[in-house]
């Protein structure tokens, strides 16, 4: 089944790559537009070491997708590019792709569009409590992930940290910042705590949480961290982090004891949440797609992520709602399936549609 016009996929992360692989394996031509200069999305950009919950190396999951897309004759990849404009209807959209390096603009005809523009990590500088960006050794989970991958977790002075705190829900579940739950940061933080303990077995790790939301099978990580790795959990919130010149004084409340604490730590890891990025906002504008109150792309029907508010445009991955890599990959496949259905319908004579 070959169509005249190729299918446009915006975003080269787990969801977009999976959709590109599925469509090209069915003999459908794909145009993959990626804003950055490499494929792989957040897992590659932030150098994720492993993926929760099974702690499988990121390369094992992402590399087959990237390699397939780069080798396939049916997939044309536009890196450093964005989709500026899309006009037309299902079956025949006219799009304009702009290269961000040389500002070259190319017009193309496509049959359907899959939007998989993903997410950005919350910028913890917006919440002044943690002194992120000012205090040394206050880092985000995305930065720790790269440190874990390099096998060298050290403070700014090159020494390994002895006592480490993870603060959950940074930027999430708060009306002042993002009022939603990012769904994966609990599990990712716990996964990282286990990996830290493997690199630094003598370190003491404290998880400062509001709730531990290790949904589904991710619960296994939570139990393992506690029972096999001796990681401590404190229910509470942090009000301030103060750098003493040597260590970080973390002020907060232990809500189980109903008492304030002020304890010194060597390193603080912020479980920064997920939010719609600039890419999602730009695409929503360019394609005139509906967005919800939180800025994520709004599907046509609640509970069904893949149909956008417009016919012929489909959604997949974390541009719809915060989700894990495994879910984003499944959504990429789901969106590809919807495209095939659409092309199949359009191939029929008008009266038979």
């Amino acid at each position, binding site marked *: 089944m070959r169509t005249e016009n190729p299918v446009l996929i915006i975003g080269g992360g787990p969801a977009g790559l999976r959709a590109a692989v599925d469509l090209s394996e069915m003999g459908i031509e794909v145009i993959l537009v990626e804003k950055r200069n490499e494929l792989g999305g957040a897992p590659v950009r932030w150098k994720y070491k492993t993926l929760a919950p099974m702690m499988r190396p990121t390369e094992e999951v992402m590399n087959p997708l990237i390699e397939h897309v780069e080798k396939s004759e049916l997939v044309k990849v536009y890196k450093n590019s964005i989709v500026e404009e899309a006009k037309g209807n299902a079956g025949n959209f006219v799009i304009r792709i702009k290269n961000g390096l040389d500002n070259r603009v190319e017009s193309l005809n496509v049959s359907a569009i899959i939007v998989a523009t993903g997410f950005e990590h919350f910028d913890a500088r917006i919440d002044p409590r943690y002194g992120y960006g000012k205090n040394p050794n206050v880092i985000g989970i995305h930065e720790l992930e790269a440190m874990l991958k390099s096998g060298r977790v050290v403070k700014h002075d090159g020494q390994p940290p002895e006592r480490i705190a993870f603060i959950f829900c940074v930027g999430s579940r708060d009306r002042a910042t993002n009022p939603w739950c990012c769904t994966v940061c609990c599990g990712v933080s716990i996964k990282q705590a286990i990996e830290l303990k493997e690199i630094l077995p003598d370190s003491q790790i404290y998880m400062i949480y509001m709730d531990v939301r290790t949904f589904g099978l991710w619960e296994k990580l939570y139990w393992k961290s*506690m*029972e096999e790795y001796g990681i401590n*959990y*404190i229910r509470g919130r942090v009000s301030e982090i103060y750098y003493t010149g040597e260590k970080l004084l973390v002020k907060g409340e232990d809500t*189980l*004891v109903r008492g*304030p604490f002020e304890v010194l730590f060597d390193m603080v890891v912020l479980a920064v949440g997920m939010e719609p990025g600039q890419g999602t906002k730009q695409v929503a504008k360019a394609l005139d797609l509906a967005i919800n109150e939180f800025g994520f792309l709004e599907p046509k029907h609640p509970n069904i992520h893949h149909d956008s508010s417009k016919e012929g445009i489909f959604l997949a991955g974390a541009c719809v709602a915060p989700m894990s890599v495994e879910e984003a990959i499944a959504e990429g496949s789901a969106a590809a399936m919807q495209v095939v259905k659409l092309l199949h319908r359009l191939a029929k004579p008008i009266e038979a549609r």
Partner: protein
Amino acid sequence: MSKKSKKKGAFIIEREYIDDQRIIEPEHLKLEEVDMSGRWGVLVLPRTIEEFNHSLYEEIKNHPRGRNIHKCWQCGNCTAACPVAEENPLFNPRYFIHIVKMGYKLELEKFKDYIYLCGSCGRCSEVCPKGVDPSGVMEAIGTVLRRYKL
């Protein structure tokens, strides 16, 4: 030489806000040759937790009946099932496990007489979803407290 007040820090305004454990009333206190005994020498320790001290916790973990304390995730099934907790709100096995795990020694001292109220009925251990055996942990806490003559 001043008399020791009957109740610790009885002269403190709004005394009932402060736990006994946090009031330090030295009988004789001399600072740079000046006698500071009496009201001037009374200290109130801050409520702020300044350190997570795991030494007591490690001892309890090494006790044969306390060895599963690290599995506790503070769900509260034990306290919900406890017939003693039903009668006495100050007996709360979930809470005792938490303060031991985090090493809040002063808080543990406050409840030292309540830990022995456990009747070892074992209902908590039956309902515990993680196999902590809270009834055994209560026994282990008691043993360790006696070791320190608390």
